[in-house]
């Protein structure tokens, strides 16, 4: 069992706390991704789990051991660094073998395990080279190879793909995914790329300013964001937010500028309870439709196209609705033209409501 359990973990530098009491249970074999904006404490949290940073307060367990005061080498973890941190003076083979040599494994075992890892990562032909003679992607593989030869309780990755170009990044993302399916070790992975988070994770941990905002599987994070921050952080482009109030006793949502959207039957009760308050209406770009056929759950809205961004497979359109602006994601066939009016529609089974002050999502059962 190699669960990683954080209990009320606090990190402070001097008087400034940067991690404010984090509770988290990462199950054995789980692929857990930390996401959040720059400076929110992802690396700090990861490095505390690795033992590279001390813990100001709280407790960290790996497997059944409390590791608070254990140095990294006694925690049975392996880490892949953002800059790979390969030993420049050692060959690829020796880079990968270093951890085993320090643990005094017999030579034939070292040979076998390094060769195995190299085969998995397809770097067998590079074993005699020095890191300086490798491309970025190859270095990345070596760094992962160094981690997997030791078969540790947990792999820790700190933005391992951020130094690669876009193409190589998506390739390595698939590799990492395959690797995890094959090895089934616990993985804790830091990124600020939400695509990596969505595609790799069993569990996403969204952090902001040293607090956990939401923990959940990717589809829950995406479809049921607990907080405006989470909604605004996921999806590209992220969710649209518009000021609104509840009208008609829960039967409609009124956007700034007098645009009224009919609320589906199932959501009315929850909306009615918010009547009279200022709220934030949220809708994802893919739930904004162009020229929709009339349907019960689609609210027709008159929009003005401000700007179009053709991306090839789809076209993003910046629309003006009432007094607000929002982005929609359309098929290129929709024929959007900047400056022209558009008969748009919102899929009203997919909207979100947030408290504008706390940012917390307002959600009925089954939303």
């Amino acid at each position, binding site marked *: 069992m190699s669960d990683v359990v954080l209990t009320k973990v606090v990190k402070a530098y001097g008087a400034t706390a940067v991690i404010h009491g984090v509770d988290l249970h990462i199950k054995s074999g789980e692929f857990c991704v930390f996401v959040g904006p720059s400076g929110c404490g992802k690396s700090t949290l990861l490095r505390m789990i*690795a*033992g*590279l940073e001390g813990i100001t307060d709280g407790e960290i367990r790996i497997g059944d051991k409390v590791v608070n005061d254990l*140095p*990294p*080498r006694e925690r049975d*973890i*392996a*880490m892949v*660094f*953002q*800059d790979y*941190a*390969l*030993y*420049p*003076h050692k060959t690829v083979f020796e880079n990968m073998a*270093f*951890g085993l040599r*320090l*643990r005094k494994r017999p030579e034939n075992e070292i040979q076998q395990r390094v060769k195995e890892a190299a085969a998995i990562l397809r770097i067998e032909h590079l074993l005699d080279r020095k890191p300086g003679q490798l491309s970025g992607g190859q270095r990345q593989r070596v760094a992962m190879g*160094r981690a997997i030869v*030791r078969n540790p309780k947990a792999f820790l990755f700190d933005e391992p793909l951020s130094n690669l170009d876009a193409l190589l990044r998506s390739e390595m993302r698939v590799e990492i995914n395959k690797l995890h399916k094959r090895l089934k070790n616990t993985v804790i992975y830091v990124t600020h790329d939400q695509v990596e988070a969505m595609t790799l994770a069993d569990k996403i941990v969204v952090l902001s300013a040293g607090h956990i905002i939401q923990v959940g599987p990717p589809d829950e994070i995406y479809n049921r964001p607990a907080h405006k921050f989470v909604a605004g952080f996921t999806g590209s482009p992220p969710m649209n937010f518009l000021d609104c109030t509840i009208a008609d006793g829960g039967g409609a949502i009124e956007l700034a500028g007098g645009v009224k959207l009919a609320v589906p039957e199932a959501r009315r009760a929850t909306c009615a309870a918010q009547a009279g308050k200022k709220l934030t209406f949220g809708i994802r770009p893919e739930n904004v439709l162009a020229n929709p056929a009339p349907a019960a759950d689609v609210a027709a809205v008159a929009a003005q196209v401000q700007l179009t961004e053709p991306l090839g497979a789809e076209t993003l359109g910046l629309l003006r609705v009432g007094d607000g602006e929002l982005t929609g994601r359309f098929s290129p066939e929709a024929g959007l033209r900047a400056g022209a009016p558009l008969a748009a529609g919102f899929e009203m089974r997919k909207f979100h409501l947030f408290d504008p002050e706390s940012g917390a999502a307002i959600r009925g059962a089954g939303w």
Partner: protein
Amino acid sequence: MGASVTATTGAKRYKLSKLEKSERLLGIALLTPAALLLLAVVVYPIVELLINSLYSYRLTRPGYRFIGLENYAYALFEDDRFWHATLNTVIFAVVTVPGALVVGLGLALLANQPFKVKWPVRLGLLLPWALPLVFAGLIFRWFFEYRSGIVNAAFEFVGLPPQNWITDPNLAFFAVCVAIVWKSSSFMALILLAGLQTIPKSLYEAAEVDGASKFQQFVEITLPMLKPAIVVALIFRTITAIQTFDIPYAMTNGGPGNATETMAMYIHKTTIDFLDLGYGSALAAIMFVVSAIATSVYLRHTRRDTGRN
């Protein structure tokens, strides 16, 4: 595309354009003053020295007589004092270069620690380096003074008999070595500290996660990563060690007897005290050759280094 391929593969050399020609002229014009200055202050004295070394030229006797290589022959085959000074120089180098390396490495590692207040450490590191050599020599002469020196005071404090640091040949040699190591290790430390600071922190973290103890990190990461800096520091130090002069001059003036006399001091005595300019020039030329050999070793090393990248 096609045009540039034929252009680069063709053996024909291109004529300089007007603009390039005028730039080249300007370049030459700008370099001329510096070249003339170098000629005046470097080349001229060396040539003058080489010429003098072929003459019998003593200020105590009249005459300026060409004697070919006689001065060199005397130095190499007959002058025991010269050989003794050479041997001293070599021993100083062999003792103080590694000594300064070890002490300098220790200082560099210390200065590289994340201290809250950095300036006392940095100052301590810089002070011996900034101090004039003669000063350092005088300070250590006082330290090793028989009656009032701090070293003998310390000896007495722990119940040991005071020693004749300056007047006993072996002890004097040792005392001079200590002073040289103290003075030169701070230069070593500065070079090594610069080297240490280029080692990425993440390498140590990776090694720590891999399971390396602090000592293993030092052996497996620090030393190999520091090797280029160590080599450069060693060669610099060796070249200056060949020229050792000020510290033994201030501490012992080469004494007792000739026990701590170096090549540079012997040259100085020959020319300034004995006023034998011809012979002194020949000795200086020999030392120049030794320095030049050491320098070329250094140059070859750096050339190989840049070639690798």
